[in-house]
């Protein structure tokens, strides 16, 4: 019993740098009074660092044949190595799930022996859960780069989501930090899965009997701040992944120093949390607000501004697009106003049918007036800042607000 506790703590600890914890996007319904049901995701709890815990996220083993500089389980790292048996993972998942601790399983693994050998184990666990335990919860499996198409196909039949981590956004960075890996091995399974998912999805529309295949699609993760990449490189990579591989999500993980390696930031240096946050904001702008990557970062502005959010940053560079009249403009324009979210934009469109909206009503709807007031016209409000220079407006906004993240950083600096 203590043994399994030890294994759990080692293998959960090693898996925690994988940030993906989503459990949504699938629609696996409970059949014949089995166990579990998957729908909209649920975060069952949050760790003290504020990240969601919705899945039992573990490695099958932390034995690994690779030596990637940024990874805790790299071969050259002197740590204790353990592995779970198939049955242990199954028991943990089922028992945690029955107590409503988790939405399902996120299973990753170090590579032992070779890619196929590892992948085969992962698939066996998923299969056992689905077939022997009639488990309908969420399963997220890692696709091991270099595994055979047959195994990846089988994984898709049992898992809701599959993912391959890109890890390092640039090819040169990958060569430097993980010389044994190559980009092509990561791209190949992603391509294979994209094709299978579309193919079987179309088939499913015609033949109801077609088995469901990775219904929550695939995702990936990039480490931020380990290889000196620019935001431009990251954001363009993300856009390419969304467009060419139809990924559901790209995750960004601020690098947590785990190694004394002169190729990497030193142990103890701060995790780039603000930058990570700005990248997620950019990601959202691309996915939900209709922005293109080159509007937010480009040759001229390769880095995202840290003190203001990327939408405000874009607006200040493009003052000629403003002011926007919230009572007349189309949805895609309203979405471009700093301080207006997707939900607020939709509510504005609905509400204005019953009469023009004024500042007070916009505030109640949830618009952040503090930022929006420099860019809009509404009932009873004329735009008086139109002739102001961008840096002036930025000053005004920064003077009246403080980013949560920056405040935290000031506090941290004060300590020393």
């Amino acid at each position, binding site marked *: *019993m203590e043994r*399994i*506790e030890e294994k*759990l*703590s080692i293998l*959960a*600890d090693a*898996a*925690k*740098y994988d940030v993906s914890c989503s459990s949504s996007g699938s629609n696996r*319904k*409970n059949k014949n*009074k*089995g*166990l*579990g*049901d998957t729908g909209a995701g*649920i*975060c*069952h*709890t*949050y*760790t*003290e*660092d*504020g*990240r*969601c*815990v919705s899945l*039992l*996220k573990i490695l099958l083993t932390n034995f690994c044949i690779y030596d990637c500089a940024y990874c805790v389980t790299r071969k050259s790292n002197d740590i204790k190595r353990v592995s779970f048996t198939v049955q242990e993972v199954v028991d*943990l998942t089922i*028992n*945690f799930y*029955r*107590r*409503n*601790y988790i939405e399902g399983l996120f299973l990753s693994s170090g590579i032992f022996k070779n890619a196929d050998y590892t992948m085969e184990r992962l698939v066996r666990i998923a299969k056992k859960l689905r077939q022997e335990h*009639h488990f309908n919860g969420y399963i997220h499996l890692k696709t091991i780069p270099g595994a055979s198409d047959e195994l990846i196909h089988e994984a898709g039949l049992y898992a809701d989501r599959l993912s391959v981590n890109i890890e390092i956004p640039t090819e040169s960075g990958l060569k430097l930090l993980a010389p044994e890996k190559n980009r092509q091995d990561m791209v190949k399974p992603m391509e294979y899965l994209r094709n299978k998912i579309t193919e079987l999805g179309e088939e499913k529309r015609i033949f109801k009997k077609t088995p469901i295949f990775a219904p929550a699609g695939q995702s990936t993760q990039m480490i931020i701040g380990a290889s000196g990449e620019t935001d431009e490189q990251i954001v363009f990579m993300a856009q390419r992944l969304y467009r060419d591989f139809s990924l559901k999500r790209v995750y960004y993980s*601020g690098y*947590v*120093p785990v190694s004394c390696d002169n190729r990497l930031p030193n142990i103890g240096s701060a*995790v780039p*949390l603000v930058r990570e946050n700005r990248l997620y904001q950019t990601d959202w702008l691309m996915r939900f607000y209709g922005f293109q990557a080159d509007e937010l970062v480009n040759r001229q502005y390769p880095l995202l501004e840290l003190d203001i959010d990327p939408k405000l940053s874009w607006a200040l560079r493009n003052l000629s697009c403003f002011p926007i009249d919230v009572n007349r403009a189309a949805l895609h324009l309203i979405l471009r106003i700093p301080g207006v979210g997707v939900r607020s934009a939709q*509510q504005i469109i*609905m*509400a204005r*049918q*019953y*009469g023009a*909206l004024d500042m007070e*009503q916009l505030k*109640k*709807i949830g618009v952040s007036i503090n930022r929006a007031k420099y860019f809009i016209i509404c009932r009873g409000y004329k735009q008086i800042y139109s002739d102001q220079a961008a840096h002036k407006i930025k000053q005004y906004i920064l003077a009246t607000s403080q980013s949560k993240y920056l405040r*935290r950083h000031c506090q941290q600096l004060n300590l020393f």
Partner: protein
Amino acid sequence: MLTLIFESFEYKWHIAAIYKKPESIQNGLFDAMHEVITNETKALRVWNALRLKLPPNALGDLYKVFLSEITQIEMTLCTAISFYFSGVDKPHLAYGRSDVLRIKQIAKMVDRERHRMKAFIRFSRQQDDLYGAMIEPDFNVLPLIRKHFSDRYADQRWLIYDVKRDYGIYYNLQEVEEVRVAFSKDFQEHKMLLEHPEEKRYRNLWQQYFKQVNIVERKNLKLHIQHVPRRYWKHLTEKQIL
């Protein structure tokens, strides 16, 4: 509640305030009192009429606002519903009106509580294989989560008990029913006795796991508390070892 709206239309009253039964009543000098007794036919007529005016999600919002049990929320419901009958097209979207917006916002609050309960309920396995959980939600959300749990845990008997409102829902492998349990004084002792032998082990494993997935370098307690407010900690297994 619906009967009240029916009667307010029936008698063309102007409503000044609404009181629930045990509440103390503040009567205005020139106000008349009228006691409303729930009448199913009248209520159903209002509900059916609303169904013609509103899409299902807006009806759901009204139900959630009712379950919020916020003091004096009945008044907002009353004015909003009268507005819904005023003949405006899609009246529930008129967010310029404060009562309509408030309905939307409170429904959102109740919905968040419903969602939190789906997340924060922690079952513990008893000797007779009953999975039991205690909750104290801000709003009366049990009716909103029963389907979620009966869909999910279709092969185990479970009981979710709202300690604050003193009733629970129990699933007996066939259907969900509302129950009221008379807990004995030495219930706490019994609970320990009746626990399944494996329960403690999995509880420990879960606590261990919770501790281990935290990345110390990224600690952000403010965010943690924002997501898992303190009032829920009492019933959360992973927050018991502080």
